[in-house]
């Protein structure tokens, strides 16, 4: 159901939610307005250069810090098709699943992927294909419970289903 193909934006360990979306902009819940500032404190060019389907690849503890759901929301609103990291901070992980931003943990592949590589990601199978280097990786699968939330289109949609 969910596949994405695009270019890689590569970041280091501990990308925090303050750099994903600085709190000085959090005086609005409007995702489109917030998305204009996505990543701006560590990558001023990101918003200019990102295209629908592109992929963020990062190191350990992606999304650490604040619980602001605005962080996965702006990444999703910018059109990013998937975030791949060695590990995710737990609130970001939870928020991404809840709002339907595809994320994958793949500690092995991150160091072998470079900025601007072209990737193909099949979110259902966890297969990550680096078209530029012609290498293939398998991300860790989600537990069924979480797969259900993702397949329903997020937490609230999945709760709605349970009630039906």
């Amino acid at each position, binding site marked *: 159901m969910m596949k994405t193909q695009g270019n890689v934006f590569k970041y280091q360990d*501990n990308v*925090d939610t*303050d*750099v994903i979306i*600085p*709190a*000085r902009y*959090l*005086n*609005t*819940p409007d995702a489109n307005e917030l998305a204009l500032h996505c990543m701006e*404190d*560590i990558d001023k060019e990101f918003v200019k250069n990102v295209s629908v389907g592109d992929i963020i690849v990062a190191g*350990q*503890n992606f999304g*650490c*810090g*604040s*619980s*602001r*759901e*605005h962080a*996965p*929301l702006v990444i999703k609103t910018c059109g990013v098709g998937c975030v791949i990291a060695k*590990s995710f*901070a*737990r*609130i970001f992980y*939870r*928020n991404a699943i*809840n*709002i339907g931003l595809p994320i994958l943990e793949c500690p092995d592949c991150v160091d072998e992927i470079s900025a601007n590589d072209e990737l193909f990601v099949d979110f259902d199978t966890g297969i990550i294909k680096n078209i530029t280097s012609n290498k293939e990786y398998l991300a860790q699968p989600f*537990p069924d*419970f979480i797969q259900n939330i993702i397949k329903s289109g*997020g*937490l*609230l*949609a999945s*709760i*709605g289903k349970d009630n039906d």
Partner: protein
Amino acid sequence: MGMTMTQKILAAHCGLESVSAGQLINARLDIVLGNDITTPVAINEFNKANFDKVFDKDRIAIVLDHFVPNKDIKAAEQSKSCREFSNAHEISHFYDVGKMGIEHALLPEQGVVTAGDCIIGADSHTCTYGALGAFSTGVGSTDMAAGMSSGMAWFKVPSAIKVNLVGSLPSNCSGKDVILTLIGMIGVDGALYKSLEFVGEGIKSLSMDDRLCICNMVIEAGAKNGIFPIDEITRAYLDGRSEREPIFYEADKDAVYEKTIDIDLSKIFPTVACPHLPENTRRANELSHIKIDQVVIGSCTNGRLSDMEAAYKILNKNKIADGVRCIIIPATMQILRECVTRGWYTAFIDAGAVVSTPTCGPCLGGYMGILAKGERCIATTNRNFVGRMGHPESEVYLASPYTAAMSAITGYITEYEGDK
């Protein structure tokens, strides 16, 4: 197999006799919390999902604390949306300007959260209430919306790291130095997805304010929650304060921990986390060459009465150094009032500091003390990420109220020598 204190509370809230690490559960919630930044997003989700009522009007807390009194028109709209939602659903724990405080200082003070609770809050520092013997963790706005509607949340039962404390703190240190030391030891993801359970004879020397501060910052080590066992200090704090009957849980004797970290409190020294991660810790006196432009004493980490007292001890009859702006923010109206009654407010003004009504303001770079390019601040807050308090090229050093207040009067990062 024995359960940790956290696992005991989670088991009780999902109706199971026992749970084990890694298990996915659906747990009943005692309190669902949000603030003026995260609640508007939750309200949007609540409405989009066509939820029409909250699960319990007395079990939801909405606190306007990040950008109030409203810093601009957009912030005013966010507060208004929280106010309208709270009125429409008759939320009994809605805290507006005049009654509000910084959420994680306010809810324990007002007895809204108590021992044995299972709490989610759309704010990462919701982990603070572990100090009272509760399971409490930060989530996002969608979880808040689901929690407000159903009174339930899903969790993966965490494994735990035991932090064994012995001895007692030197008089120039506080809970802040303990948690900064721990984060320096294990790193910003050293407890990722796990509980940090604090035990040992050393805890009896830690006040409730110290414990609240320590649990507040466990998220900066990636932890799901931090928790202290129940003792006389907990009971004395909760007595006459909790609006619901507290329930006291304790870890099983044979509870399983991933590892144990031993900390001798008597060996703790004044600790500072350097830019741009809370794990970059150094002894304060190694940083005496660092000149500062601003000092912030406050936040959900260190805006409590004992923090104000620490600042008073140092600032009373002293002067803030030339070229330094010192901003003091008592975390709740009650704490602010105490500062006035005890004469501390006057002492702060006489020293050359400014005192604000409660707000998260500068901690997250919202307002009330934003840094310009190249400026440095020593703050009792909890994060020193790039751009956290203003310009991406400004710097934040995290420290205790003692160290921050001493630095305010010298203009450089300076250790407090302690009681003589």
